[in-house]
């Protein structure tokens, strides 16, 4: 049986080094570039005809647009408008990373914690900067809400601080863990199908049926985790703009 961890191996394709830092073009980078090309091609070619009554592809592009736009409006309000391109990019980048990873043999960049953490850190730092720019030092009120009794500060402030600073980690780990575990299960199940099927046909059918079901589930998780990553970013953005 193939090692289920092997699929996460980074393989440099073009070794590069800039100022002593390794910036090699790897299989992970290939998938990121493919995502960018596919997302851009899909969203620009589909609306090229600018049809009043949209066709299949244009409908899909409009659905993505309105889905993210509504998510942002419902969670942040009209002040969130100017962050729409960022939130949309985040959603499409994560979604395509997850979905392209479902192609057998493809590399899933969202299964790498450093990638998810990179995005989560940008969201966290960005949201914190926005919060301080809008509210100044008043933004520190986030950690001790107005109206709470002074005596509770001893407990409340540490809890709020910890929960605030754990945001990027929970955001990053949630996506990374979901993708990693899902792909390990798929690989292990695939291994069972091959080894049991080779041994005798009937026992191979059982893990194959299970593998099929898990594959469907993984597609759902790919969509869901992209949604969760984006909506949590929206909620953090809401906190920064409106406080609690």
């Amino acid at each position, binding site marked *: 049986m193939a090692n289920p*961890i092997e699929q996460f191996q980074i393989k440099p394709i073009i070794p590069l080094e800039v100022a002593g830092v390794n910036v090699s073009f*790897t299989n*992970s980078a290939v998938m990121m*570039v493919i995502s960018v090309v596919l997302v*851009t091609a899909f*969203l620009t070619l589909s609306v090229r005809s600018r049809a009043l009554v*949209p066709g299949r592809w244009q409908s899909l592009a409009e659905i993505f647009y309105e889905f993210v736009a509504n998510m942002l409006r419902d969670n942040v309000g009209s002040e969130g408008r100017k962050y729409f391109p960022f939130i949309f990019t985040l959603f499409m980048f994560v979604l395509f990373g997850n979905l392209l990873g479902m192609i057998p043999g493809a590399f899933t960049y969202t299964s790498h*914690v450093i990638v998810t953490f990179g995005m989560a850190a940008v969201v966290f730092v960005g949201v914190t900067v926005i919060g301080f720019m809008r509210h100044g030092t008043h933004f520190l009120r986030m950690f001790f809400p107005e109206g709470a009794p002074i005596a509770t500060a001893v407990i409340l402030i540490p809890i709020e601080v910890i929960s605030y600073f754990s945001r990027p980690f929970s955001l990053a780990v949630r996506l990374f863990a979901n993708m990693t575990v899902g792909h390990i299960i798929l690989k292990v199940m695939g291994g069972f199908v091959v080894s049991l099927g080779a041994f005798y046909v009937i026992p191979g059918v059982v893990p194959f049926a299970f593998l099929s079901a898990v594959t469907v589930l993984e597609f759902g998780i790919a969509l869901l985790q992209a949604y969760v990553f984006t909506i949590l970013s929206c909620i953090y953005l809401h906190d920064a703009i409106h406080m609690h």
Partner: protein
Amino acid sequence: MPQFDPAFFAPQLFWLAVTFVTLYILMAKVALPKIGAVLDERQRKIDDNLDKAAQLKAEAEAAVAAYEKALAESRAHAHAVIKETAERLAKHAEERTKELNAKLGEQIKAGEARIAAAKETALGNVRSVAIEVAAATVSRLAGAAPDQGKVEMAVAAALKEQG
């Protein structure tokens, strides 16, 4: 796990930054304005059509109102014309009747006068015939012609007696 090997952190972060920024620029400058424009245009067209529909409906209602007003007016006008005509005809008929009555009265009067004149003439004729007859009778009976004046007086007296 390869995920926790720090050797691969730098290249992944670098390419994440490159691709994410590229995608952000492509989305913000190219794709999203395009889709947004399409959606706005559709919304505008729908609003336009709704406005136009409302306008046409208002126009149709105005036309119906104008039509009903015109109908009511012409009905009133027709009533007036009928009434006026009826009155005019009644008056005319009355005048004609009056005129005819007057004419008939005149004709009757003229007829009566003519009858009276005829009667007079006839009576006159009777007198001269009576005188002649009386004179002839007397001359036959008496064998001599009577005095013309006496006969006339006698006839007149006899006619008066008869009425």
